[in-house]
């Protein structure tokens, strides 16, 4: 063989991972075969009719319902959903703070943080609809139950993300403040809060964004918001009303997402 060119040398240096890739592909295909066993593409007898009805309905929304200003109009329902998400996020954000400190391994002893963590995993995994159904027993059906549900559902994720911020705290600042003779209050106010506040806020805004979606489905279990009218309209095959609700909802969620991305970019860049 003649001498290899530089390009060919580089080419031969590339790691050969054929076997590895094949193993992954085989495992994945096996899993796919296992999971496809229960599926079938059979359509409902009236499936195609309903599908075309849905699309005509979505394209011809009920405009008077969409823009009506009464308590049954889409705008008011969206306001209610927004309020549920907002108040719920605030409640969750407050409740998550003590739990986050209790599960930060650099603040409390290991057993305490471990126990709190296990509890948080449970809190996080219980689906929001289950909380909704449980809290309706406390408050009765209505948006109030939705607020509490969003609050409880948010705790898990908020606490987990708070903990990441707390464990990354720069403790050198605190040491130098101690050596300057700062009091405990001053250490928290000027040493810890400035480090945490921006991150906490950013996490909160992100969760608010998610809670908008969460709040829009809580109506399914009777916990207020736009979900209930949506479900009723769907069960009654009133597709043009479904269309106007979905248009309003999608517009609001996209708007909130855009605002939240802007705010968070601003917070992170200082």
């Amino acid at each position, binding site marked *: 063989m003649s001498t290899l060119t530089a390009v060919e040398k580089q080419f031969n240096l590339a790691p050969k991972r054929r076997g590895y890739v094949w193993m992954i592909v085989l495992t*994945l295909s096996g*899993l*796919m075969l*296992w*999971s*496809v*066993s*229960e*599926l*079938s*593409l*059979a*359509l*409902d007898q009236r*499936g*195609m009719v*309903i*599908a075309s009805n*849905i699309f005509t309905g979505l394209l011809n929304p009920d405009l008077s319902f969409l823009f009506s200003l009464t308590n049954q109009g889409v705008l008011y329902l969206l*306001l209610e959903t*927004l*309020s*549920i998400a*907002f*108040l719920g996020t*605030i409640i969750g954000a407050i409740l998550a703070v003590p739990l986050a400190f209790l599960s930060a391994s650099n603040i409390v002893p290991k057993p305490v943080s471990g126990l709190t963590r296990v509890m948080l*995993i*449970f809190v996080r*995994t219980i*689906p*929001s*609809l*289950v909380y909704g*159904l*449980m*809290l309706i*027993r*406390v*408050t009765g059906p*209505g*948006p*109030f139950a*939705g*607020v*509490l549900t969003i609050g409880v559902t948010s705790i898990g994720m908020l606490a987990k993300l708070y903990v990441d911020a707390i464990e990354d705290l720069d403790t050198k600042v605190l040491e130098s403040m101690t050596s300057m003779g700062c009091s405990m209050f001053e250490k928290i106010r000027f040493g810890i809060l400035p480090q945490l506040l921006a991150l906490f806020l950013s996490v909160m805004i992100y969760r608010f964004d998610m809670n908008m*979606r969460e709040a*829009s*489905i809580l109506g*399914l*279990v009777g916990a*207020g918001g736009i979900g209930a009218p*949506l*479900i009723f309209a*769907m069960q009654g095959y009133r597709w043009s009303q479904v269309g106007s609700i*979905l248009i309003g*909802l*999608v517009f609001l*969620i*996209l708007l909130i*997402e855009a605002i939240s991305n802007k705010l968070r970019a601003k917070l992170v860049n200082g």
Partner: protein
Amino acid sequence: MWAKRLAPKKIVLSNGKSVTEKRSKLPIILTVLILAMYYAAVVTGFDIEQLIKRIGEFFTIIRQMLQPNWGYISGIWPELMSTLKMSLFGSVLGAALALPLAVFASQNIIKQKWLVATVKTCLSLVRTMPTLVTALIATYIFQLPQTAGTVAIFLFTTSYVGKLMYEAIENVEMGSFEAMEAIGMSKLSAFRTAIFPQILPNYLSTSLYSFEGNVRYAAILGYVGAGGIGRLINETIGWRDYHSLGMIIIMLVITVYLIESTSEYFRKKLV
């Protein structure tokens, strides 16, 4: 904007120099927040008295859930497996479709502006629809509940992974792609050799992450009749059988925890 209206505070130091401190916007933000909270409380009928009086009910249910009905495991198992199958199939298929869609939504590769805009709009519309609503619509169209659930998860995964991927592709280093196009490679092979390796770890890790999330979502899809463990959750709550509900939650937590730690292990390896 506020900086112009609120002049910065001037502080004269002991050595005669003066420094300026930006005035805090905190009072304004706080006022707005408190007003918003007040109106939200009015709209939602927030009632702290009722909460304090009746919150005990919530903990009664929790206490019952903490004494799970161990005999119920055999009933949970098939539904749990069907939940897993739904989320696995939907995620893999969705992630596979997301990649080509993401390419068509990247403005640095596709030069036709209308195509990029259309694909992007479709992706964000599908992503914004709550999964539960998609699932409910799908139950009207498909006969099997599991298929409806899988379709809902598939659509959500496609839009979610698709969005993150076109963002990744648009931020990729374009030099090598241009060089390959310049030496006469087709767009497809230039993409495969220049851009694909750059986004591959990100793509796999995003797909795994979305699979994790989908297992959680799949758990509630049964509530609208789209198959999986949600059906049992709905039933047990309807019968107020909180001991069995506790067992379902325990099984769900274990499954989600196992999947999360496995996927986290692989994701850490990828990055």
